[in-house]
């Protein structure tokens, strides 16, 4: 069973005088353990698609199903809880909570889920170890570099044990070295722990690490290529 199923998805923005057809009938399925990049020229609808898949915005028509749950017709409050328990988000501009420390930022999600203290502490320690940030546990975000903040954001997205993680241009604000570190960490999580990632990008080097590349143009899928174990092939 696919984790995410997108059927005949359309989104038309009517905010200006001229309606903008950001998505023009998109059909896609994503399986557990995918590491997928969504690419295409600026304005092709990448962000719009990710927002629909993450339940952050409502499509004009079409359906998004997440493991049997149709999220397009959920009530607003239900949808917030659904996101909390099923979807991890990584944003381009990190969006950590500035008044909370690294540890508290990660715990924040788990507290919303009412996890117990012991479980939260173990998970924070484990995630920060994976992210190589154990020494920053009690630091507030503004004392971290962009790359470090984005790694905290990955840890936060993983904290809730989501079914998949959506990342809209996660490396757009990072330098190439931080981009490599972040991508390698994400790829490692994907391979070792079977975490499903769907991310959008403009960056060729990021695309190269993906195992599936979906290209959009004018709100339509124009190509969908699976490059099986392309990473490993290149590195070996």
């Amino acid at each position, binding site marked *: 069973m696919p984790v995410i199923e997108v059927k005949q998805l359309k989104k038309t923005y009517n905010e200006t005088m001229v309606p903008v057809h950001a998505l023009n009938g998109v059909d896609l399925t994503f399986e557990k353990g995918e590491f997928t990049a969504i690419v295409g020229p600026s304005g092709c609808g990448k*962000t719009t698609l990710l*927002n629909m898949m*993450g339940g*952050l*915005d409502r499509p004009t028509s079409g359906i998004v199903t997440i493991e049997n749950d149709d999220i397009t017709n959920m009530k607003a*409050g239900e949808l*917030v*809880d659904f*996101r*909390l*328990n099923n979807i991890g*988000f990584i*944003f381009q501009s990190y*969006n950590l*909570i*500035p*008044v*909370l420390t690294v540890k508290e930022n990660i715990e*924040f*999600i788990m*507290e*919303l*889920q009412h996890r117990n203290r012991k479980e939260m502490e173990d998970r924070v320690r484990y995630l920060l170890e994976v992210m190589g940030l154990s020494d920053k546990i009690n630091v507030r975000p503004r004392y971290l570099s962009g790359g470090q903040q984005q790694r905290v954001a990955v840890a*936060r*997205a993983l904290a*809730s044990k989501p079914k998949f993680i959506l990342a809209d241009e996660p490396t757009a604000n990072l330098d190439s070295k931080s981009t490599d570190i972040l991508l390698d960490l994400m790829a490692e999580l994907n391979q070792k722990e079977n975490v499903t990632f769907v991310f959008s990008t403009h960056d060729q080097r990021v695309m190269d690490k993906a195992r599936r590349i979906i290209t959009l143009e004018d709100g339509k899928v124009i190509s969908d290529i699976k490059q099986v174990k392309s990473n490993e092939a290149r590195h070996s």
Partner: protein
Amino acid sequence: MKQIIILAWRNLWRNRRRTMITLASVFMAVILAIAIRSLQKGVYASMISNAVRFSTGYIQVHAKGYWDDQNINNSFEYDPSLSAVFQKNKDISLYVPRLESFALASSGPHTKGVAVTGIDPEKEDEMNGLAKKIIEGDYFNSQPQQGILIGDGLAEYLQLHLGDTLVLLGQGYHGATAAGQFPIQGIFHYPLDQMNNTMVFLSLPDAQLLFGAENSLTSISLMLQNENAISSAKEFIEKHVDSTYEVMEWPAMNKTLVQEIQGDNAGGIIMLGILYLVVAFGVFGTILMMTMERKKEFAAMIAVGMRRFKLTFMVIFETIFIGLIGIVSGTLIILPILIYFHRHPVALTGAAAETYQQFGIEPVMPASLDPSIFLYQGITVLCIAILSAFYPLWYINRIPVAGTLKQ
């Protein structure tokens, strides 16, 4: 909930300077409001206490018709069963009989109209501390033959000294002539010039004799253990005395005073309203800015799974913190000052004192420590805080998540 409170508290200190300025405005408003109210209420209480202790008592029993026509002919014969009624009610702490009328006081070439009050020396002193106001000579003692007590203002006007004789001339009960002469036994001084200039006291038997009204009284004034028992005590008395008597409460007998207080009080409340309006805009502005500038942060929090109502709680806590810190710090600073001025009332001098005198008010400003003052200011500030959060709450509930994250 703990998480939300921690977030709210830390958010408050993100823009330390702005929060401090807002807090300072709440703090100043609380101090000002409490100080103004405390002095107002203190002055009202002192005015009421003067009126109650020196004239009417909390409750007064007199013959029906006396209040509208305060005339010796409307006096009543004292019946001992009345005191039995008063003693039966445990809220009544003191009953003070009086016989009051008017007379001309003269000494040599000088004449002046005065208010003559026949009193029970012990009870009168217990009610208003008359004995302590004697500045020359002595208060009444238990001897049957007593002199007269006059105010220092009257003594000066009539050029009288201790031991001199004062002649009183007037109309007695049912048209009899009232005439007598009394040696000046004591001279008193009140903070109120009006009393010093126009009041004279005789012992009750002397006054009854003077006015030809043996065993008669014009009123019995009652003091109470507890001010809140006024209506119940009044009802009690009415039930136990016959209908030739009238029982009145102090507000009905001091209508001008009550109106004056109400008018002044309304003025004070309007002033506070304006003060708080200014503060409310300050708090509102701060909370609004705190919300607007975190729009994207809020959108991200909603995106990752925080319900909007939790964010609104956070903002409410933020404003409540501002309100509470302002109330608590303001109260802590002003309270010791008010306690001092409660114990040592400000004595007014000069023009202010004269104005007070003209209105028959003792020229002192004691601070009131009535807990309701602090309670009301606290509630007002908290209401302002919560009301200030309304627009931000509405705003939070309309943040478009996807659109905001894109910015």
